[in-house]
């Protein structure tokens, strides 16, 4: 199990060849109250950097980009009735979707927790 971060403020927790993706606690704080999450379809092919999900807050509708390429295997159905989970539990229960990685090498271009923390401080 290991966790990576993107410059677009997504996190991915990789377990074997499946990654669980969400937005970071910093990102949810910037967005404000989340009112709706539009999720990708299970089975959908995604490429690294594709916009695959939309998070609506009272302030904006923001795209969520897949940090890796692969196929969507699961989505967090709980967000349908409780999108606010992304606010209260961004980096665990508020996950968005799972991807079966097609190229684990792509993880090399992401940051670890310490690097992401530095990156956020510089914003």
């Amino acid at each position, binding site marked *: 199990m290991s966790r990576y971060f993107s410059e677009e403020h997504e996190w991915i927790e990789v377990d074997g060849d499946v990654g669980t993706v969400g937005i970071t606690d910093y990102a949810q704080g910037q967005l404000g109250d989340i009112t*709706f999450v*539009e999720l990708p*379809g299970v089975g959908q092919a995604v490429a690294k950097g594709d*916009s695959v999900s939309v998070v*609506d*807050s*009272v*302030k*904006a*509708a923001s*795209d969520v980009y897949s940090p890796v390429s692969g196929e969507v295997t699961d989505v967090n159905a709980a967000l349908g009735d409780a999108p606010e989970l992304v606010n209260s539990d961004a980096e665990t229960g508020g996950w968005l979707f799972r991807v079966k990685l097609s190229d684990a090498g792509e993880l090399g271009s992401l940051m670890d927790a310490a690097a992401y923390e530095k990156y956020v401080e510089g914003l």
Partner: protein
Amino acid sequence: MRYLPLTPADRAEMLGVIGAATVDDLFSDVPAEVRLSGPIAGLPNHASEMAVERHMSALAAKNISAGSAPFFLGAGAYRHHIPASVDHLIQRGEFLTAYTPYQPEIAQGTLQVLFEFQTQVARLFGVDVANASMYDGSTACWEAIAMAARVTKRGKAVLSGGLHPHYVACVETMARFTGDAIDARAPKLDAAPDDAEVIAAIDKDTACAVVQYPDILGRIPDLAAISAAAQAAGALLVVVVTEPVALGLLEAPGHLGADIVVGEGQSLGVGLQFGGPYLGLFGCREKYVRQMPGRLCGETVDADGRRGFVLTLSTREQHIRREKATSNICTNSGLCALAFSIHMSLLGGEGLARLAAVNHGRAQVVAARLAKVPGVSVLNDAYFNEFTVVLPGDAREVVRALADRQVLGGVSLGRLYPGVDALHSGLLVTATETTTDEDIEALAAALSEVLEGVPA
């Protein structure tokens, strides 16, 4: 605002910055054959204001206006009686001068009007939600197709041959730039609408089927059957209503399985107005609301629990979400929506049903009378206030001959479908509550005369 004229040097500098050689280069997207290459030939020399007014008045007097003669034109724009109070109320300064509220919550009156309008449209269409209006029926039709593509993630729309050709043209224009495939059927002079053809064309790539109700020839498609076929294929049913008064008698499309219902609201409150501005109506099922274009007004309570109105889901609009917005419409037809809403309020549900019954009754009288004219046959076995008659010759010629006799007898299919020989004998005839018995007799007499070839 000061007006500062430009010198030729200013212009040259500006052109240099944007990389254009001449001002004409800015119009290079306009095809050369439709551009003016020099002064307009034959324009007379300048004249005094009074002389020009007199000349223009003389030209205008050559027109036969809708209110000045027996009038049977429809085809997507309908002449109804609009109560004088509608025009009086919409001219109040608070309404007339209001523009898109970008600090919407300070414009509670505007928002409440829009909220009431949305409620009326949603009830009329039989759908969960309606937006605050679009530009007109044809653009609303395109927006519905684009929305269905977003919802289904498919890129093909199957169009009934009964969809107004101007709507089809608008859709095809937009689809040229989005890459959506438009599978449009040709209209046929049949008594029955082309439901079976539409159903046969729906497949796994179809985002939506688009059906007009009543259709361009006045026929009434079986929405429930088309909805079932669309649903089975994972496609949406888009229903287009160009004459909202019809819904005073016909079952609401949303109750017959329509996923998105759009239309033209001109009939109620707006008037013919030389073809615009008109009013686009748009509603859909609640589950698709986040993909709905345009603005949406919602009712809520403030911190003290008092009722108030807000614009909701604005985060999907163009001024916030830029190129990823659900649509590039970032406004609504506010004044026309207000006119619609006032007219609708004056009618009420019962009034609308009675108005619809009168419209249908008048059309029945016209159809029965025209059927007695030698050589004329009524195509439809069902219609609301508009139907198609088949003439023994070219309907365009007949319409011109009727106009020479001071009767505006209908819209020829040759005008709507130029060059389609199979349709050239068709004439669309519309009656509304404004149609008198004298109008009907005038039409029947003029038509008999024209078809007998009796010189005027």
